[in-house]
């Protein structure tokens, strides 16, 4: 389900880093040796065997990150991102695997389109990529795609991300088809008549600024509907980019009743509130919108207690001229691959809102499990998928530093604490 450039497998020793793998239960200062792309030794005073040695003192070595929600913009949006540029950005952000969304032009709704993306990934992807296919043809919400064939072709899951599956009966059919495909359905929950024209969260800030509101209930109503359908069909689902307290509450209640539901949350929803929209900066315009401080608190709590198991960047590159317009005219979406760890370390870990171990788990094993992928591990015999993190380093987010083709980041000009020093993906050093 993941496709990337095959090629060299690297030899490497990371010496004296704090090895932190919350899933394996490792937290100690150790050396880690990688032989031909496989973790061959973990211990003290390991022999370098002539490998490249990376000094890890004062740094954290952890399982590399998995981003379950990236817009690579291919086919059709190559001015904004490509497989090559998007996976270079992922490598710089500490990711060893990413999942790409199918809302492209054309939509990834046929085996032919999916097949050609997979072929491209095999020659261009620095970091392995999984491609989700659409639930409905053209993401029009009318007819199911040929899900079984798409699954056979290698689809990593199914989603109409960017749009909801409006009709409940069609949503039900898609859930039924999970029995055949065994691939996760990932749902963008938005009731379109309630969110129509919405530019930002409906609340005191939208009332003051005059923007048409996109109320929380537009999301939570669909979350509740989809959880009801999943319970009825006993099929698993994954909820994309949750933003509202009511959604988290509904998810927690459904999980307690045994519904197999996973969910993700973005760095921007974890770090910002609708107050940021007062800047009228088009780089804080996203769907779902930034919500209230209370919603943000519920998202952080949900991530901490595991109700929300994944951090997803929803990396959504946009051309510069598309965002250099008044807020109301700008498209939704912000980039995130290269800034996710720094943003979350700075805004959640440093202030004590969430432990580092929890963040690392939610950025790696959590999203891998949600899609049935092998979680990256720091364990002897495992393929090397590693990230070396400097939690002391402060760095300024600047446009010229981005590997992504787009720079529509809400963090431009900000100084972050926490930087990725080295990324190893599928046994290969891809960054650092």
């Amino acid at each position, binding site marked *: 389900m993941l496709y990337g450039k095959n090629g060299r497998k690297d030899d490497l020793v990371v010496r004296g880093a704090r090895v932190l793998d919350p899933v394996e239960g490792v937290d100690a200062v150790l050396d880690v040796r990688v032989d031909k792309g496989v973790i061959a030794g973990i211990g003290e005073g390991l022999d370098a065997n002539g490998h490249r040695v990376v000094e890890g003192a004062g740094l954290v070595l952890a399982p590399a990150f998995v981003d379950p929600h990236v817009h690579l913009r291919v086919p059709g949006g190559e001015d904004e991102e490509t497989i090559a540029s998007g996976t270079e950005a992922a490598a710089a952000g500490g990711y060893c695997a990413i999942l790409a969304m199918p809302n492209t032009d054309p939509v990834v709704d046929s085996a032919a389109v999916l097949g050609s993306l997979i072929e491209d990934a095999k020659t261009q992807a620095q970091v392995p990529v999984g491609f989700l296919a659409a639930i409905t043809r053209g993401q029009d919400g009318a007819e199911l795609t040929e899900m079984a064939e798409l699954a056979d072709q290698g689809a990593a899951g199914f989603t109409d991300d960017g749009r909801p599956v409006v009709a409940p009966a069609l949503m039900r059919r898609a859930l039924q088809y999970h029995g055949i495909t065994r691939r996760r359905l990932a749902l963008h929950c938005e009731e379109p008549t309630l969110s129509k024209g919405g530019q930002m969260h409906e609340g*005191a800030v*939208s009332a003051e600024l005059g923007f048409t509101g996109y109320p929380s209930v537009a999301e939570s109503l669909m979350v509740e509907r989809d959880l009801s359908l999943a319970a009825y069909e006993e099929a698993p689902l994954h909820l994309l980019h949750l933003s509202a307290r009511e959604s988290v509450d509904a998810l927690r209640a459904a999980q307690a009743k045994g519904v197999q539901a996973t969910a993700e949350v973005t760095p921007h929803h974890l770090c910002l509130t609708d107050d940021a929209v007062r800047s*009228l900066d088009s780089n804080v315009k996203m769907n779902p919108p930034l919500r209230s401080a209370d919603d943000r608190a519920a998202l952080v709590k949900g991530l901490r207690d595991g109700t929300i198991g994944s951090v997803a960047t929803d990396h959504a590159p946009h051309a510069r001229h598309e965002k250099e317009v008044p807020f109301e005219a700008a498209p939704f979406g912000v980039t995130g691959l290269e800034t996710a760890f720094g943003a979350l370390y700075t805004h959640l870990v440093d202030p004590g809102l969430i432990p580092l171990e929890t963040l690392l788990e939610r950025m790696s094993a959590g999203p891998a499990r949600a899609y049935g992928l092998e979680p990256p591990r720091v364990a002897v015999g495992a393929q090397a998928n590693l990230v070396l993190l400097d939690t002391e380093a402060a760095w300024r987010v600047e446009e010229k530093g981005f590997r992504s083709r787009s720079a529509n980041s809400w963090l431009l*000009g900000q100084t972050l604490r926490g930087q990725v020093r080295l990324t190893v993906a599928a046994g290969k050093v891809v960054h650092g």
Partner: protein
Amino acid sequence: MGEIHVMREGYLPPKQPPRRHLISIGDLEREDVERLLATAKSFSRSLEREVKKLPTLRGRTVVNVFYESSTRTSSSFELAAKRLSADTMSIKAAGSSVDKGESLKDTALTLGAYDPDVIVIRHPQIGAPELVARYTDAHVVNAGDGKHQHPTQALLDLYTIQDELGRIEGVHVAIVGDVLHSRVARSNVQALALMGAKVTLVGPPPLIPRGIEAMGCEVSHEIGAIADADVVYVLRMQRERMAEGANYVPSLREYTERWGVTPERVRPGQKVMHPGPMNRGVEIDPRVADASEALIEAQVRAGLVVRMAVLYDLLTTGPVPVEAAEPLEVA
């Protein structure tokens, strides 16, 4: 500054550096508003003279860019600039490069190349004035951006209230009607709250934005709530902003029946204001609009002197750093 300053009668030039732009009432402190109203008052006296033109802004250039139709605002900005001897240029979206798909950024860069001192902009989208401020060196005055702000309207309304009632602090203003779509309402709530007036918003629930009480006003859905007010401020029903089938109100007939401002609902001595253009017979009964308590023409007159004061204030105290927008790289 001293040599171009021609005001007499004890008027003192502003001591505080004024804001570089006027984009939102939120850009202003109470003392800024007081200074602007005082300046406007002194201009109103100068306009009583036979020769109404002042040389104050001779050699300055004011560009008016209107992306939305306007009678009152565009004409009063133009006249205000002319009364102060500034050179003016007016651009309307229709018939300009906007018709050819030029972006607002490029229009701003083009106009900025002429080094205008002030750009007055009206635009249907929230945030357009900030964008122009980011890409030009001109002082930017917001003449209405979408549903966001219309700061000079609020200032002229404050001026009118002060002129008629002798004060603003403690005055109770009921704003009636389509608050949801109204930049006038937003600027007025902010401005009135800043000056210590009491504001009650009155209208049908779908037309009162959720959470607006946080701006410092009260909300009522009953027209009876206007009874206590000193001023009844009637908003236009913005039919053009109401999408087909949005069902903000079931019908204009029902709206008028329950929330229309009629002679029966106005108490003697209550002042009535309206930002125009009016829908007579919808939100305001023609008998109310034409009654002596109506301040609607006074508002228009105030618009001229208040806009003169805004232009004067922006241009006569020297440059101050841009506060409104982060500098961005321009490719």
